[in-house]
């Protein structure tokens, strides 16, 4: 079974690891995720594609405690099988804060400022039998 990126416009899968695709403003250096054409900081329109970093610090977090509606959700939405998952913003140094799923869902084990690593997170299987993979952050022990 192959793994496929949830959307090639926002991330590539390289050797099973996600690489996030953002843009950097050539005028002011501001980063945005995902790719967009204009700069929200300086109103410039000259954005270059960049790969974002894969390590950062947890800035804010919560736990998704109920199954999201499907569609659009691609993960397990059956209330009987659903498992809560973390969601947070991870600050990539010098770049941007990225919103992400978190692999940890125990509030006692999440703390603002903790070091986080980008990882692949499998959601479900598509019509070709391929595994749909999104990105997540995992606490670094």
């Amino acid at each position, binding site marked *: 079974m192959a793994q496929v990126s*949830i959307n090639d416009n926002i991330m590539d899968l390289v050797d099973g690891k996600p690489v996030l695709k953002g843009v950097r403003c050539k005028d002011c250096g501001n980063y945005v995720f995902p790719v967009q054409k204009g700069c929200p900081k300086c109103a410039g329109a000259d954005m270059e594609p960049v790969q974002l970093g894969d390590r950062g610090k947890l800035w804010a977090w*919560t*736990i998704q405690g109920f199954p999201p509606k499907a569609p659009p959700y691609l993960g397990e939405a059956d209330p009987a099988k659903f498992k809560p998952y973390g969601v947070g913003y991870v600050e990539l140094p010098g770049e941007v804060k990225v*919103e992400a799923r978190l692999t940890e869902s125990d509030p006692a084990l999440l703390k603002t400022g903790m070091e986080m690593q980008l990882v692949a997170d499998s959601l479900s299987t598509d019509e070709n039998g391929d595994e749909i993979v999104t990105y997540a952050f995992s606490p670094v022990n």
Partner: protein
Amino acid sequence: MSDVAIVGIGMHPFGRHEGVTGMEQGAAAVRAACKDAGVEWSDIQFAFGGSMAAGAPDTMVSQLGLTGLQFINVMNGCATGGSALFSAYNSIMSGAFDLGIAVGFDKHERGAFRIESGNKSGRDWYGGSGMALTTQFFGMKINRYMDQYGITQQSLAKVASKAFRNGSMNPMAWRRQPFTDDEVLQSQMLSYPLTQYMFCSPGEGGVALILARADQAHKYTKNPVYLKAAIVRSRRFGSFEVLAPSLAIEHSAGPTIDASKAAFEMAGIGPEDVDVAQLQDTESGAEVMHMAENGFCEHGEQEHMLANGETEIGGRFPVNTDGGCLANGEPVGASGLRQVYEVALQLRGGAGERQVPNNPKVGYTHVYGAPGISGVNILTT
């Protein structure tokens, strides 16, 4: 032109109404507002109407009467009601019209809002990954805020129990059963640290407000309420907003702070002058944070204000006297106008069992919502 007055208010009860369309609820609110002002629908010169999920508002003329009036639809997320009111206010201030109406209504499906991105290329990765939920933003923002300013989960429960207590005294409210702090805390954890009873739900309802030139207000009512400020603001770079796949490293104040400052400046008064306030309480934490963001206290002061009951109806600074979004639910198109309806009722002394004592003279309303927008109104007797 000196001012704009609200001379008629009308509301269709909030909640769930099987077999009644959102637009019928809006039309019922319009009829109630006309009756309150003692005018006919045919007297209304213009309308601004808002609805997110219940149809194009201007088609309601087929229910109300085809008078040929100017009817403009407004869709501006959670600030739809505030935007309709802003537009109506300025239509009168400009001198173009003497009498008009702002109307909002909605009818949403059960459960959290279903938000799909409409990606043109590839899968809806944001919704697909389970991040297109406004509830997560509220959980993240209050979780961080509690850490920074020492707000406890007990305070979040107090906000919710107050809302349901106030709602139990409001015949127009959806949720009218009081809950204790413990019941709120023990309900299902939806988005840590927020439990089910700390969240409002999308719902149904309609509100209409009739506005007139202030110098003609006494033709319609003996107790006009004057609209002293109507402001809508969007977000600036660096603010922390709902449904944002990324945020800037830099941090700046959100649109509520900007809208609040502009509104106080426009009205020429300060937070200390406000006698009753309706603040966006999508969930308990939002009310707590919005008390400070709107300038009514310092960050962190909410903890002792709530412990002392200062935001109760009989307290120093009553907040969400009609039960807020928590007890009324959030029909997006109508929600902001509900706040203004409640403040007008309070300033007229007509809020019955939940009337704020000592003749409140200045009221304040505030909405916040996706994608980072805020609307503030200030009203006086």
